[in-house]
């Protein structure tokens, strides 16, 4: 019984302060994989799909005969959108369930919360969501986009003739670290490109904000200064639907004021009526509408697994897909699931993207990925209007003066450094 050790653990915990006998026996006939995504609470809306994706990927791998001759066994827990609980559950996965690697987290807070645990217990986290960068850790593989793989190309696109030659910028954001950092990078970037400060407006709203009347009106007003105006939205999760509903109703057309978002994908669009949002943009490394044989096969088998051909796919799913397959490849290469061996093996490995080309694990534990700009269509999908060559993920943004010349190099996981000053050859972060 695979659940037995957990029950044993449960009983021991349940007895709380009594000192119960505690000697779980682990049958070593499977390789366990931890899945650490919120299934309840505010983040369930985004993370549940990733849990399903992980179960799907693991099932697919097992069909192919598993890994190192063993079957993979998913261990799913619910950290309930509660950041300290993320740390606790991560510890449980690693220490009690002895998982070989963990796939999980969505918000930066949850990642920051589990980081010390992964460092302490030396395990691997595959983090599948676009994030603010400014981080590179030995124990984390970042398979989502760094700012230079999403934000900067999106702004470049809007600045280009083809994207509408935007001159005036609204950075509309939810007040947390990812938008703060992204906006900091973008603000610097725009200024470097010669955008005067009065043509940049930054606005923060709280999580789950639902009454966007004033903000949307302010965007309209800002856009009436006679220069082509664009909105860069780092609005998070729940707040997006009311934002776009208000946008559509107040009649902001993409031809007049395009909104480019970094957190709105197929999943989010599924909850809104997009007929009046046609043309608004999103920047990702993957869209469901990408027309490649890999993607078609992926979508088909996903629909088969989930038994619902309406279920969308999205960028974090591709990131999870890449992360999982790269891990599988690394384990096969290393011949073991041992953390340090896998980390050593994984740097430099490549795996085909669903969008064509390959994703390579860089020494800074980020991936190379192409950047795609898509326009929202009436059917809730995106039309790709621009696609770059694969861009290497940059942990420390070159745009920010304080990060100039900072690199991360984990080629050798034992002596690597996450914050290497290439000028002085010193490693800023203490291990």
């Amino acid at each position, binding site marked *: 019984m695979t*659940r037995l050790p*957990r*029950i044993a*653990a*449960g*009983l*021991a*915990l*349940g007895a*709380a*302060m009594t*000192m119960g*006998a*505690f*000697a779980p026996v682990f049958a070593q006939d499977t390789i366990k994989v931890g899945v650490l995504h919120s*299934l*309840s609470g505010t983040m369930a809306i985004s993370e549940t799909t990733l849990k399903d994706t992980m179960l799907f990927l693991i099932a697919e791998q097992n069909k192919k005969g598993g890994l190192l001759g063993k079957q993979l066994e998913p261990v*799913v*827990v*619910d*950290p*309930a959108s*509660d*950041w*300290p*609980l993320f*740390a*606790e*559950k991560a*510890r*449980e996965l*690693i*220490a*009690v369930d002895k998982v070989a690697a963990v796939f999980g987290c969505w*918000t*930066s*807070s949850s990642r*920051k*919360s589990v*980081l*010390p*645990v992964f460092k*302490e217990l030396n395990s691997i986290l595959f983090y599948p969501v676009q994030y603010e960068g*400014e*981080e590179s850790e030995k124990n984390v593989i970042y398979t989502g986009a760094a700012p230079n793989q999403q934000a900067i190309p999106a702004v470049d696109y809007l600045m280009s003739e083809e994207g509408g030659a935007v001159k005036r910028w609204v950075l509309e954001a939810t*007040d*947390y*670290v990812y938008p*703060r*950092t992204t906006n*900091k990078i973008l603000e610097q970037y725009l200024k470097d490109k010669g955008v005067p400060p009065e043509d940049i407006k930054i606005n*923060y709203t*709280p*999580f789950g904000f639902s009454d966007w009347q004033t903000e949307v009106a302010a965007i309209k007003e800002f856009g009436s200064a006679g220069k082509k105006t664009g909105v860069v939205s780092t609005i998070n999760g729940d707040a997006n639907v009311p934002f776009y509903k208000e946008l559509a109703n107040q009649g902001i057309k993409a031809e007049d004021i395009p909104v480019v978002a970094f957190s709105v994908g197929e999943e989010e669009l599924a909850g809104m009526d997009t007929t009046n949002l046609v043309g608004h943009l999103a920047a990702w490394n993957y869209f469901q509408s990408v027309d490649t044989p890999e993607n078609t096969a992926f979508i088909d088998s996903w629909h088969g697994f989930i038994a619902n051909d309406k279920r969308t796919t999205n960028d974090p799913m591709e990131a999870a897909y890449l992360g999982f397959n790269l891990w599988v490849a690394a384990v096969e290469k290393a011949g073991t699931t041992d953390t340090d061996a896998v980390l050593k093996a994984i740097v430099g490995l490549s795996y085909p993207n669903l969008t064509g080309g390959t994703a390579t694990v860089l020494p800074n534990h980020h991936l190379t990925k192409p950047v795609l700009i898509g326009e929202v269509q009436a059917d809730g999908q995106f039309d790709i209007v621009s696609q770059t060559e694969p861009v290497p993920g940059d942990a420390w943004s070159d745009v920010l003066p*304080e990060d100039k010349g900072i690199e991360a190099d984990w080629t050798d996981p034992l002596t690597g450094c*996450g*914050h290497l000053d290439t000028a002085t050859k010193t490693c*800023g*972060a*203490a291990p």
Partner: protein
Amino acid sequence: MITQLVLRALDRRAVWVVSALLLVALAIPFANLVLPEGHPLHLPNYAVPLFGKYLTYAMLALALDLVWGYCGILSLGHAAFFALGGYAMGMYLMRQIGARGVYANPVLPDFMVFLNYKELPWFWNGFDQFWFAALMIVLVPAALAFVFGFLAFRSRVTGVYLSIITQAMTYALLLAFFRNDLGFGGNNGLTDFKDILGFNVQATTTRAALFAASAIALAFAVLVCTAIVNSKLGKVMIAIRDAESRTRFLGYRVDNIKLFAFVVSAVIAGIAGALYVPQVGIINPGEFDPGNSIEVVIWTAVGGRGTIIGPIIGGLLVNAGKSVFTGLWPDYWLYALGGLFVFVTLFMPKGIVGSLRSLFSRRKPPRQDNSEPLETGAKDIPIIAEPQPGAAE
């Protein structure tokens, strides 16, 4: 007076609880550190901070019980005091990182470098000293409780109204702390701690020590609460809980007494929060969530309010259950939790301890002898008072 208080604190039940806690404070580190791995009683490393976390939750529940169970003040914002204590501790821990942060800034924590702070905000000064942080852990929750309580109790905001504005308080704090402009790290909060008092927070010995500290702090809180509820002040508090205006007509300044209980409770909650943070390794605004405060109420109700041991048992059991079931039934545990709350309110209104007590007291002959009150310390004054149905409104 002091001796009397100490004597009072040491009633039979309290002594039992305190000894159990002290025993645990020794036994858990022993089982973790001394017993070799593979020994049947060896406790794995990960369990120590987990149990420590439960203890701090139990302490929070005890704090709430002092005002709710004994004084009839249903605070739906108690997690705010817990979080404030936690933040004070978190700020100390952040300052301890020093130049070991990613950006190697000797003064500014990473997130400040990140957000372009040029210098430390004034309210971060002093937190590099443990004594200062310790002082703030006590003072900040106490000050908030004092100001809030002073206003609310003086204006005689009671019952549901009080509950709702305590909720508004913690909600406002939640929103405020989410703001990155406030200078507390926004949504991510404070994390990635390195040292506490020079010891590595991740070392097993430090963890064991923190666990022991939590157990001892809880024991101390039990003593303080027992001393209060066994004193005449405790009787007045219960009187206020059961018939507030009657107590006024007896000449008691109900607002002052409530304020006292509220502040003491906030301090206990703050200390609990301060012990919580180094053990879980993060403090963020999520702790201010009104839902968290409601959960604390539920732990207390499950264990048995108006008793000292009840909230401790409730806090431990519910949280241990949560740990187990979020892993065991990730998709269904909320049903179990929700069901538990409904079940307890319907069928065990006095909570676990209250129900057990009524079970036992039925067998015992009624007490006839109420001997000299002078010997309060040695006498069997019930820690467990019967809550009156409907008395809180």
